[in-house]
């Protein structure tokens, strides 16, 4: 019985794992910016307290589709970082463009009126901590 008790945590540790599948294999959902895309807005990322960030947020238009591109971008590690297109410098009214991953281009849903949004934010959703802010300037 004692042996069994010792085996249980070891068994749990062995079982504790993750393995990618067809929907989580990298790279996935890589969206390119075509050479014909027009740069409409851009802004340089500024960090919040205790965070290191570099790079720019750029919004391109391709036909009727808008896309956010993170250019020469790097940021401090965070557990649940998201890319927000926001109406303010704080994450109160925004469009969640998804997880910050190795992908650099994030399509903006077609129902979004791009003129209503003034910032691109990098935000840790799980711990509700804002990492970086890029105020958008019209090109």
């Amino acid at each position: 019985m004692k042996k069994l008790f010792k085996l249980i945590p070891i068994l749990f540790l062995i079982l504790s794992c993750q393995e990618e599948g067809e929907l989580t294999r990298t790279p996935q959902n890589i969206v390119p910016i075509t050479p014909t895309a027009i740069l409409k807005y851009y802004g340089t990322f500024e960090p919040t307290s205790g965070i290191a960030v570099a790079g720019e947020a750029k919004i391109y238009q391709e036909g009727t589709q808008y896309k956010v591109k993170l250019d020469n971008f790097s940021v401090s590690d965070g557990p649940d970082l998201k890319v927000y297109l926001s109406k303010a410098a704080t994450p109160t009214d925004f469009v969640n463009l998804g997880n910050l991953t190795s992908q650099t281009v994030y399509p903006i849903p077609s129902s979004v009126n791009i003129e209503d949004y003034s910032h691109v934010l990098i935000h840790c959703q799980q711990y509700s901590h804002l990492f970086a802010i890029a105020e958008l300037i019209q090109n």
Partner: protein
Amino acid sequence: MKSKIHEYQKNNFKVMSKKLALILVVFANQGFSQGCSDAGICSINKGFTTEEKNFKNHIEIAAIFGAGESDVRYVSPYVSYTKRFNDRFSFTSKVTFSTATGSFGTRSQFGDAFLIGNYSFKEKSKKQWSALLGWKFPFTASNLKINGYSLPLDYQSSLGTVDLFLGTNLNYKNWDFNAALQIPVFNLNKNSYFKEYGGTDDFPSTNLFERKSDALLRATYSMKTPNKKFTFKPNVLFIYHLGEDSYENIFSQRENIKGSDGLTINGNLITSYSISKQSSIELSLATPFVVRDVRPDGLTRSFVAGLQYQYSF
């Protein structure tokens, strides 16, 4: 006299076996629907267990295998320990673990810890009531990822809520009737899955998921073979989800998930084999036949098979 009772038990057992076979045939013809996979409310009747009163300690080790939504498959082991303080009061603790495998990959993690207290009232006219109070604590915020990709709740080992259980049980002859409530008291769910970015339509968005309570009713009939080695416990389980769950959509607005409330009915057959006075093994087979229209919590199973080993000392 003894042989007459034995004969009666045999006949009674034959009749019940036929009824059981009929129930199983009906269940087997019901196609895909929501199953009873919730490590919480579906399994808390264990906290009502009153059969074994000769031993003070009771350990249970189990592995539950399940088929879920889309192509998701589960292996969910758990360990539980029950301490019986006296004839009236017992206390159960339980830790769950889950491995989910499907198109998103494989994700394993500890699920929840349960702490459940049970009080049995004095038996009167062959009726015994008991009451249960318990808590469920999650080990995760239900935001496990693979390669940085957010996963639906179907792949999460816990719902990420601290839940309160309140329940009562009536034991009358061979019947047990349970009623229970599972109430999410603190929502720690930080799931960040969006259908829009998931690459599949199989799972609904559950970003910052908020869950409503469940109410449970269960009726169980127990029958033992004449040699008392085997016990069969067919049971039917009604779970009512008492409201629509909600999530925060990509536009940062909270949205109710239409069709996520309502009734689920499960059929379950437990077969127990007594190895000795102290130990037994149990096989539990469950399948649902009435479901909610939308099941965002990832508790959906088309079939569940559980294998348990119990040891008392």
